């Protein structure tokens, strides 16, 4: 796995190749060996430079009550229930989701995680947890690098914490499941990997970094 140092090198190479000149200027055209923070735009830049089609999405309007972002939840839910995930027939995934019975199902798809950025910190969205009968009742499954593995999954803690809720899964995953009321930053950015660029010209055309506004 490329180290932090190697990722910094890759980002500088991307800048030298003309990717995201604006971002390059903001960071003083140098990042190798420094403790400069990188954000969603830098991640998208370095991925694009490598030929990976990465899109940047901006969620700038908190449409939900108490400053929540239901659009963000819907976006991620749609992404992970996309019909082509894990060899499912088109249009079947969401309908199967809604029809599924009371037994919880957990499916690993072929989809990549999503880079989630908000002011001052970034995390990784690894999935979504939806009530089968109500798509609006969703939790995002988020890994936070600021926490150790045992903080992410309580089962890794020693001693194993006592479950007092009668809902072992919920308790064991409380560090990972994030409900809408906990995502109340003013704005969020997502980096979504969509595949590889089909040609060198397409890769070069992505040098200018723009984001898609979800409004």
């Amino acid at each position, binding site marked *: 796995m490329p180290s932090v140092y*190697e990722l910094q090198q890759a980002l500088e190479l991307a800048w030298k190749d003309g990717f995201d000149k604006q971002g390059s200027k903001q960071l003083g055209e140098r990042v190798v060996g420094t403790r400069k923070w990188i954000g969603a735009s830098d991640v998208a830049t370095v991925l694009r430079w490598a030929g990976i089609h990465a899109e940047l999405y901006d969620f700038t309007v908190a449409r939900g009550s108490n400053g929540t972002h239901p659009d963000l939840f819907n976006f991620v839910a749609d*992404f992970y229930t996309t019909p082509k995930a894990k060899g499912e027939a088109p249009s079947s995934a969401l309908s199967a989701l809604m029809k599924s019975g009371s*037994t919880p199902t957990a499916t690993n798809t072929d989809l990549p995680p999503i880079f989630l950025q908000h002011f001052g910190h970034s995390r990784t969205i690894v*999935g979504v947890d939806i009530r089968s009968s109500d798509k609006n009742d969703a939790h995002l499954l988020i890994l936070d690098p600021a926490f150790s593995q045992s903080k992410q999954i309580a089962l890794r803690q020693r001693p194993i914490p006592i479950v007092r809720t009668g809902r072992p899964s919920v308790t064991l995953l409380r560090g990972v499941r994030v409900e809408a009321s906990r995502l109340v930053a003013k704005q969020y950015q997502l980096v979504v990997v969509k595949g590889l660029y089909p040609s060198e010209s397409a890769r070069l055309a992505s040098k200018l970094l723009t984001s898609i506004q979800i409004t």
Partner: protein
Amino acid sequence: MWTCKKCTFENDAVERACAMCSETDPAILLQLQREEEELQVVTALKRKWDEDDARSSVFEEWEDGEDDAVVTTGNSSTSSGQQRSSVNNHPGAASVSTSGVAGLTTQIADIIRLGGGMAGRTVRLCTPSLVYFAQRDSYTCGYRNLQMLLSSLPQGDPKWTCALQKFSNGRFSVLFVTTQIFNTRARRHCAFGVRAAAGPRAGMEGWIR
């Protein structure tokens, strides 16, 4: 410890009824029941992970220093690139600082399937090949999340190899070859071997909506 409401005797936590007067407390019984449920979940999960371990003999972690990345293998076991054992079980663990652990999303799926309390819910997770990286320095969150993202991309797919090699001057492939040479027991002894053995993913068509 819990205190009997009838005789105020201090009972051990495991006592279902008061050792002095045999009085039972519904709240204590409920708590014990829940603890038993959780124990069953934990036992089931550990059994499944042990069974997975028995099918494979892999322990992997990425030590991510400031300028290097290392895949280590040892006696502890996992399957499909999933860490199952405590880091401290690893030979030389004291000198190994783990920042990358594979298989976390599979563990999440296991907990949901085998655990209770999530009836009526459906969970969709990203690819199980994701490696979880924890940050040691506050400035590295962006890099750690980028590492998680990169780890989830299909290294075994030739279409992706070229792109991924750009991040480390070809060391993705070097790492792959090296771990196979030094670990001849099975290709699956390293994550890259697992991915290669599993064959390339369906490609990017599933990722484009």
